[in-house]
């Protein structure tokens, strides 16, 4: 009994000495802040910051090669926590979410062909330019939904919709969309123009029942040009997101029915 206890104690002690020795003389030290920052980041590894995962971003932060606040998913709180660890002042980032600027559903927007290939927008867009009459419209084959790390994008009635509550603003969908109609907008803005077609009214009407015709009624109803809630590119109204409108009257008075109030707060899936 005593021999057994002593033997185990001896083996244990020898192992402990060995490990202590190894830890003291052999180990490679890492900056402890890397671990702390990795823990403070959301851990979604979405890559939205441009680094391979949260760990990569943490390393870049400690090395000083990345700006704090590049993590859209973590938002301001995360930036603050990181700033505390790094011992620098935080830069405020507003939460941004993705918005699909198209509301031409199957019943409203004309389809000019039967696409029967792979269910992917990039492939569909490369096949005879896509099956949708409007070349600025959402094709609805889910390239954005496929890359969304949070499953925040759903496809219904030939249209992609972003669930604002699930979206972390990583921006992957923005670059995945072949039509380039997804944008990151402030989560606080509630009124959006859901159209990306800059053509003249009659041209838009030919291909879509709910396309923006550039009538500028929205601008007039939101206090005119001076109020600066809207901008125009060609015959397309755009919300000025540095000064977004909040009057829901604008929505009901849009003759083209392409302005919507918080369209994507639906349940998603």
């Amino acid at each position, binding site marked *: 009994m005593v021999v057994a206890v002593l033997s185990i104690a001896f083996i244990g002690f020898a192992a402990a000495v060995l490990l202590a020795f190894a830890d003291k003389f052999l180990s490679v030290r890492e900056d402890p802040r890397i671990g702390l920052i990795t823990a403070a980041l959301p851990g979604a590894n979405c890559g939205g910051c441009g680094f391979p995962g949260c760990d990569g971003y943490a390393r870049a932060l400690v090395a000083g090669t990345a700006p704090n606040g590049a993590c859209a998913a973590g938002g301001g709180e995360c930036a603050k926590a990181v700033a505390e660890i790094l011992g620098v002042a935080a830069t405020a980032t507003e939460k941004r979410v993705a918005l699909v600027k198209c509301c031409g559903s199957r019943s409203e927007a004309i389809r*000019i062909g039967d696409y029967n290939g792979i269910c*992917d927008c990039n492939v569909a867009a*490369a*096949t*005879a330019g896509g099956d949708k009459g409007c070349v600025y419209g959402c094709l609805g084959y889910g390239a954005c939904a496929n890359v969304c790390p949070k499953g925040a994008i759903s496809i219904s009635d030939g249209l992609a919709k972003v669930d604002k509550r699930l979206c972390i603003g990583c921006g992957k969908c923005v670059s995945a969309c072949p039509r380039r109609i997804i944008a990151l907008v402030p989560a606080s803005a509630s009124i959006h123009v859901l159209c990306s077609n800059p053509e003249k009214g009659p041209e838009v009407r030919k291909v879509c029942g709910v396309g923006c015709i550039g009538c500028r009624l929205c601008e007039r109803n939101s206090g005119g040009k001076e109020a600066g809630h809207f901008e125009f590119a060609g015959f397309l109204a755009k919300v000025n997101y540095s000064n977004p409108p909040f009057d829901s009257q604008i929505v009901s008075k849009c003759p083209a029915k392409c302005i919507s109030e918080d369209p994507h707060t639906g349940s998603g899936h």
Partner: protein
Amino acid sequence: MRTVKSSFKFKGGVHPAYHKELARGKAIERMPVPAELAISMSQHLGAPAKCIVKAGDYVRRGQLIGERNGFISVSVRASADGLVKAVEKRIGASGQYADSVIIDTTATAPEAAPSAEAFALKPIAWRSATREELLQRIEEAGISGMGGAGFPTVVKLSPPPNKRCEYLIVNGAECEPYLTADFRLMLERADRIRAGVEIMRKILGHPAVRIAVEANKPEAVVALEKAFADIEGNVEIVILPVLYPQGSEKHQIYATVGRIVPEPPQLPIDVGCVVENVGTVAAIADAVEKGECLVERITTVSGDVVNEPKNILAPVGVKYSDLVAFAGGTSAAPVKVISGGTMMGFAVSTLEIATTKTTSGILLLSEKSVFQFTSQPCINCGRCLRACPMRLNPAAISKAVEADDVATAERAHVMSCIECGACSFVCPAHRTITQFCRRAKSSIRARIAAEKARAAEASAKKESSK
């Protein structure tokens, strides 16, 4: 000169229904210039040409309207006299938008407009001309490959100094169903092909010449034999077995000289071969001997709803609708319209698309000849493996791409895929395998381009910090 049967038969390949009888008996007809032309700046592989005219300019046939923009690029010339109505983005057959010059050919020429002679190129006596003169003429004439891919011909004809061209292969296989444009060209203008071959032979330093024709075009072989009867040097007409995709560059090289082109980025010149389509060869002859630019081409308008299937010589930039009208219109609304052949062509959704230097055919098909399908899961039957002429594993590639695993597809050599469509053709589950391959290829290409850009950016940063 002698005629031989090909002694190399590649593995794989398919036998689609050819339907060439619709237009093979129709002589080439020249189409009058339509009221409006839309000439794309992107008619070839590589960088689009730089447009040098603007709305309101009056242009003459043969006038330069798009400048060669970079090494892999081709110049573009106006196909007819007329007033430039606009320069705008128009959709092409492949679904890509490109700057197009819209020309109103009904406008009368203003008095200040220069005469047509000012733009005409002078014929060159090629026997006494230098290689550089000839190459410059081919560049001036805006010649790119007319088989389908539209590779700039000048680039192909100027191989790097460390590589020697041993074989010039003239591609007259035309293995795509329905198309008969090359067949008619060989039949009616074999003398042009001969002249082109002699010019190219001079440019390439007198390589051996192989003219490849599929066995289902015996009349073309007879015409070529007559035209080439007294040619000197090592020239052979090689009769290839009828098998799709016999017209593919790599398979043509194997069928004629038994050489295998290694994986990309290796090119045919790495095995000492240059392959040109018969249409390109004839265009080179016209450019050099007659001073004619590449502003018109032969296009087959065929399909079972076309009233009079025809081989039409039309100016480049004519709208599909005008071509179809010239072919007598349609007997019923087509269910599917394809630009090119049925195997590798592009389905288009409108006839308001203009032709380019590579438009070999327009096919309008009825419901009867279009197979409506729904894709189903792979049943692992392996037919695509047997059909693939590149000996790839299309089943594995398509399944990987379907599961968004492009890395596995890349390991399966998807970049070697020539997109011939044989796999989709034989698939009993009607999977769009070729489209999966295309998708993998485009995303791999995009990734490589992004990596290159990032590397360039990093090196630029390093430079500036120094």
